[in-house]
């Protein structure tokens, strides 16, 4: 069964040559319109006709150079962004780890942030109460549970985001380069937890530049380049293709 279906998805970004995002700017450019000056922008297709299916319980790695559309694809799957063309369907609850840390509110404490995230993830109140302990435990942040999030190091924030994401009973986890800031010991722990997550029949989509991690961990891989799928399928083949391309440049 497919838990994620991405059908022919395209996403366009408009990059203005001159940023106009105030009312004053808008009035100014409307007035100068009569003088013949128009605001110009460039179009960038971050994703072009991307099709991809993810089977339940599999882990998929998404690889590609910087700016190839990996993060945009994850954001679209997470419903944070909407595609300009094509359609997406997701069957199950998603725990996104987009960008580092959850960082919902730097002024709130670790515990309060966990509560906010857990609730958004759909945990019921009584369930949430029981989970808070195990989440903070896993993140090894017991000592800091009442400290405002802003006082935590970036590695600690990442650990918290990771534990919250794995402990909220999601069916699908989207991970965007999140492991990079953890120390080696925690990275090991994460990997073990990932494996358990997968063994429980859940699905992981992983964006990474760490080819060893992708090869070790992912069943399938997708290679994106300039917004298009260049290769997909068996992980080691796709990784080989990626490396071949990089070296031939």
């Amino acid at each position, binding site marked *: 069964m497919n838990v994620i279906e991405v059908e022919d998805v395209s996403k366009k970004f408009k990059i203005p040559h001159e940023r106009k995002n105030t009312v004053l700017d808008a009035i100014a450019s409307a007035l100068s319109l009569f003088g013949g000056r128009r605001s110009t922008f460039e179009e960038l297709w971050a994703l072009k006709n991307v099709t991809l299916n993810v089977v339940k319980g599999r882990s998929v790695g998404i690889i590609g150079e910087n700016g190839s559309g990996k993060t945009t694809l994850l954001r679209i799957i997470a419903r*944070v962004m909407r595609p300009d063309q094509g*359609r997406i369907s997701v069957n199950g609850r998603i725990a996104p780890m987009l960008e580092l840390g959850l960082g919902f509110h730097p002024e*709130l404490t670790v515990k309060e942030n966990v509560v906010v995230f857990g609730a*958004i*993830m*759909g945990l019921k109140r009584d369930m949430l109460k029981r989970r808070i302990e195990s989440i903070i435990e896993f993140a090894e942040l017991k000592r800091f549970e009442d400290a405002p999030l802003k006082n935590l190091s970036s590695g600690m924030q990442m650990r918290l985001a990771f534990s919250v994401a794995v402990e909220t009973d999601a069916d699908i986890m989207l991970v965007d380069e999140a492991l990079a800031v953890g120390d080696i010991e925690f990275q090991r722990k994460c990997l073990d937890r990932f494996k358990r997550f997968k063994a429980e029949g859940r699905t992981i989509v992983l964006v990474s530049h760490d080819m060893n991690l992708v090869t070790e961990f992912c069943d399938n891989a997708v290679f994106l380049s300039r917004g298009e799928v260049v290769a997909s399928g068996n992980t080691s083949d796709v990784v080989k293709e990626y490396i071949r391309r990089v070296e031939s440049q």
Partner: protein
Amino acid sequence: MQEPIQRQDADSANTVRMSMLQYRDVIWILVKKDFKIRYRNSSLGFVWSLLNPLSTMTILTLVFSLLLKSGIQNFPIFLLSALLPWRFFSIGTMQATGTIAGNPSLVKKIYLPRYVLVLTNNLASFISFLMEFTALLPIMVALGMTLTLHILLLPVVMIIEFLIVLGMSLGLAALSVFYRDFYQIWEIVLQLGFFLSPIFYDPNIIPERYRFYYSLNPVTRVIESTREILFYNTFPTAFDLAIPLLIALLLLAVGYAVFRRLEPRFAEET
């Protein structure tokens, strides 16, 4: 909790109702969060939100009863009965203006129907307003206000005002994602609104021919109704309530439409 298949193009009144139920816990938790942040950074916390209207009341009372001699009996009550709903309107809309643009971590990192952010912010403002009102009520009574059963109608007026604030907030929050100076513009509009609403004067001083334009201000009738209940101890007529309710529903429809239209690009612009 297993969700059905979610399609991105799902978009109907039904989806909103479903998500309202589904996100009930989230809404409540976010309201509490909002509340904590509002009062966390000052040890006096809530006391500030009482001192502010009280000092405005004292200043305006001094100006209007001693210097300008407005001739209105019991001016402090006359003023407070209008100042409190005005404060909810201005603080509510102003705080909500930045909820999308100022919350990139919630907008970009996880899916949550974005109207929830505006709604929870408004709810937190509403609760502040109710607390402010409850705390100031004894002071108003001490200053000579007569408390009558008319006050039972006040919740209706308050809910109508909440809907007005919500409708405007949705539009403002969406627009300020694309126009970053919207907050400053709205601040100026509110300053003007303070003088264009019957807060420190009786609306009857407005010349007849401007009356229609004057009454276009959505909060005018809310303020007048509140004052009728608290100050004049009379019931607002059904007409007095129906008009602001209609305005509220209209604003809500327009605000929500603007919000939905701009929502797909929120994550790109924040």
